[in-house]
C-alpha cells in the first residue's frame, strides 16, 4: 500500500488519538442517561455554539460546497447566505424557550421533549408521537450518518491513499468508541475542537487564495474573463433563471432547517442555562459566516487556479495540497475529516438515543431503570454505527444526495412541531402527528415522484409548506389540549424557573414554608 501523503497521514493519526483521549475523559464523567444524552445540562456557551456549528456543517462544507461553487459560481452563496444565519435563527427563535421547557419537563431527547409537551391521555394521536417521531428521527439520522461514514472513507482514500475500506473502518470505529464511551459531552468537546480546526483551515484557505489570485479585484477580473454568468445569482449559464421556488428553498433550508434537526436541537437542551444560549447567539453567526463563506470562496479560487479538475468536489483538498505547505495541508485534511466526524458522532449518538429512550423505553419496556438504559444507549450507538459501517462498505454509494435528502426530511418533520411547542397553545397532538408525517413524506418523495422538475419547488420548501399547513388545519379541527398543557407555552418564557425554585426552597424562613416550597418544586419538576 503506497501512502501518497505521509504528512496528512501523520496529522490524521495524531488527530484520531486526541479524539479517543477526549472520549475516555468524558466517559469518566458519565453517571446517568441525562449525562449521556444532554451532557447533564451543564454545557457552556462556547461548547454549545461551536458544537452547533461543527455538528451541523458536515464534510459537505469542505467537499460538496466548494465543488458546487466550482460549477455554479456565486449561486452557491444562496445556500450559505441562509446557513451563515442558521445558528442565529435557531438559538434566537427556538433555543432559549426550548431549553427552558425541556429542563422543566425533564426531557432527555428532542423526541422525548415533543412526547412530553404534547402528552394528552384523552388523545389517541398523543400516544403515537414518540413512536412516529422516534422512527422518523432514527431512520433519517442513521441515513445522514451513513453518508458521513461513506464521505470519511472517500476522504481517506482520495486524500491519503488509504484504501476506502480502512478509511471507513478506522474513522468509523474511532467515532463509535468515543461516542459510546463519552456520550454528548464527548461529542461536544470533540466538536468544539473540530470546529476550531475547521475554522482555522477555512481562514488559511481564504488568505492563501486571495494572495494567489491577486486580491478581490483579481478574483473578480479573472472570473469575469472565464465566464460572466459565474456572477449571476441564477447560476452559471443562468440555469435557475426565474426559479424563485428553487432559490427560496436553497436560502431557507439551512436558515431555518436546523430548528427541526433532532441532533442539533439536543445542543439547546445541553446548555447550563438560558444565558449560555444567549451568548451562543453572538458566537455562532461569526463562526458560521466566516467558515461558510470561506468554503465558497475556495471553490471560486479553484475555478481560476485549478481549471481542469476531474472531480469538482476535490477542489478544496487539492487546493490545500497544491498551494499550502504539506504539513499545514495535512492538518487541513484532518479538518476535512473533522468536519465529517463531528457530524457523524452527533448523529450516531442521537439516532441511538432516540431509538432507546423514545421507542424502547416508552413502548417495549417502560420500567427499564436508568443504569440499564445508559447501557442500552451505548449498545444501540455501537449497533447502529456498526450497521452504518457495514452498509458503507458497499461500493458506489452517493454521499451528497443522501445528505440533502436526510437533512430536509428531518427539518420538514420536526421544525413546526418544535416551534409550536413553545409558541402556539392551540397546537394539538393530532396536528403535530399530521405535520411530522406529512412534512417527512413530502420532502422524502418530492424529487422521486418528479414533482421538483414539474413545480421548480425545492423539496425542503415543499416539505415545510405541507408540514406547516397540516399542523394548523388539523390542530384547529381537533379538540384543544388541556389548560395545563397550554400553559407550558408560558413556562417556556420563564427562563430562570430553576433559580426561582431554588431560592424559594433555600431562603424560606419557616420550616412549614420550606416543606410547601419543596413540594411545589417537586410537582413543577
Amino acid at each position: 500500500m503506497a501512502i501518497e501523503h505521509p504528512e496528512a497521514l501523520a496529522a490524521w493519526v495524531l488527530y484520531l488519538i486526541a479524539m479517543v483521549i477526549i472520549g475516555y475523559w468524558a466517559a469518566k464523567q458519565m453517571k446517568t442517561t441525562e449525562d449521556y444524552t444532554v451532557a447533564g445540562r451543564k454545557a457552556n456557551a462556547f461548547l454549545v455554539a461551536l458544537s452547533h456549528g461543527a455538528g451541523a456543517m458536515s464534510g459537505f462544507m469542505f467537499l460538496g460546497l466548494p465543488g458546487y461553487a466550482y460549477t455554479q459560481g456565486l449561486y452557491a452563496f444562496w445556500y450559505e447566505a441562509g446557513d451563515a444565519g442558521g445558528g442565529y435563527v435557531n438559538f434566537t427563535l427556538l433555543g432559549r424557550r426550548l431549553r427552558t421547557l425541556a429542563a422543566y419537563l425533564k426531557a432527555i431527547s428532542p423526541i422525548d421533549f415533543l412526547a412530553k409537551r404534547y402528552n394528552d391521555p384523552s388523545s389517541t394521536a398523543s400516544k403515537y408521537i414518540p413512536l412516529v417521531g422516534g422512527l422518523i428521527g432514527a431512520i433519517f439520522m442513521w441515513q445522514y450518518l451513513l453518508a458521513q461514514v461513506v464521505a470519511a472513507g472517500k476522504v481517506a482514500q482520495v486524500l491519503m491513499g488509504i484504501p476506502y475500506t480502512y478509511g471507513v473502518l478506522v474513522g468509523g470505529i474511532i467515532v463509535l468508541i468515543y461516542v459510546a464511551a463519552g456520550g454528548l459531552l464527548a461529542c461536544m468537546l470533540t466538536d468544539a475542537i473540530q470546529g476550531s480546526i475547521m475554522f482555522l483551515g477555512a481562514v488559511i484557505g481564504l488568505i492563501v487564495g486571495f494572495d494567489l489570485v491577486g486580491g478581490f479585484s483579481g478574483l473578480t477580473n479573472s472570473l469575469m474573463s472565464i465566464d460572466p454568468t459565474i456572477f449571476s445569482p441564477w447560476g452559471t449559464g443562468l440555469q435557475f433563471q426565474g426559479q424563485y421556488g428553487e432559490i427560496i428553498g436553497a436560502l431557507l433550508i439551512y436558515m431555518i432547517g436546523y430548528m427541526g434537526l433532532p441532533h442539533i436541537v439536543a445542543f439547546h437542551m445541553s446548555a447550563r442555562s438560558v444565558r449560555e444560549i444567549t451568548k451562543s447567539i453572538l458566537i455562532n453567526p461569526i463562526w458560521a459566516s466566516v467558515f461558510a463563506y470561506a468554503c465558497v470562496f475556495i471553490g471560486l479560487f479553484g475555478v481560476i487556479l485549478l481549471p481542469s479538475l476531474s472531480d469538482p468536489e476535490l477542489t478544496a483538498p487539492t487546493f490545500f495540497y497544491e498551494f499550502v505547505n504539506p504539513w499545514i495541508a495535512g492538518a487541513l485534511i484532518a479538518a476535512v475529516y473533522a468536519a465529517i466526524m463531528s457530524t457523524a458522532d452527533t448523529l450516531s449518538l442521537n439516532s441511538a438515543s432516540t431509538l432507546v429512550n423514545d421507542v424502547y423505553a416508552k413502548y417495549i419496556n417502560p420500567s427499564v431503570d436508568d443504569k440499564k438504559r445508559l447501557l442500552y444507549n451505548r449498545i444501540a450507538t455501537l449497533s447502529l454505527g456498526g450497521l452504518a459501517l457495514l452498509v458503507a462498505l458497499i461500493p458506489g454509494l452517493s454521499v451528497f444526495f443522501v445528505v440533502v435528502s436526510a437533512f430536509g426530511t428531518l427539518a420538514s418533520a420536526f421544525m413546526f412541531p418544535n416551534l409550536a411547542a413553545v409558541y402556539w397553545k392551540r397546537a394539538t397532538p393530532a396536528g403535530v402527528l399530521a405535520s411530522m408525517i406529512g412534512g417527512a413524506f413530502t420532502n422524502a418523495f418530492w424529487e422521486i415522484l418528479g414533482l421538483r422538475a414539474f413545480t421548480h419547488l425545492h423539496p425542503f420548501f415543499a416539505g415545510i409548506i405541507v408540514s406547516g399547513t397540516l399542523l394548523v388545519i388539523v390542530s384547529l379541527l381537533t379538540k384543544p389540549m388541556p389548560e395545563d398543557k397550554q400553559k407550558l407555552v408560558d413556562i417556556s418564557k420563564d427562563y430562570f424557573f430553576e433559580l426561582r425554585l431554588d431560592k424559594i426552597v433555600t431562603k424560606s424562613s419557616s420550616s412549614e414554608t420550606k416543606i410547601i416550597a419543596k413540594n411545589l418544586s417537586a410537582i413543577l419538576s
Partner: protein
Amino acid sequence: MFGWIIRCILGMATADVNNINPTKSWALFLFWPAMWIILAVVTYLYFTNQEKKMLKAIKGGK
C-alpha cells in the same frame, strides 16, 4: 411577501442578465453575513438586558 423581498434583492443583481455587474453580485451576497452579525449583536444586547432584569427581579424576591 418573502417572494417579493427576494425579487427586490435579485433585481439588484439581475436587472440585465446580458450585462452582469459583479459589484452588485458581490453586494447581494456579502450583505447576508454582515446582516446576520449585526442582528446577532443587537439580539444579544437585547436578550442580555432582558435577562438581567429577570435575574434582578428574582434576587429581589419579586
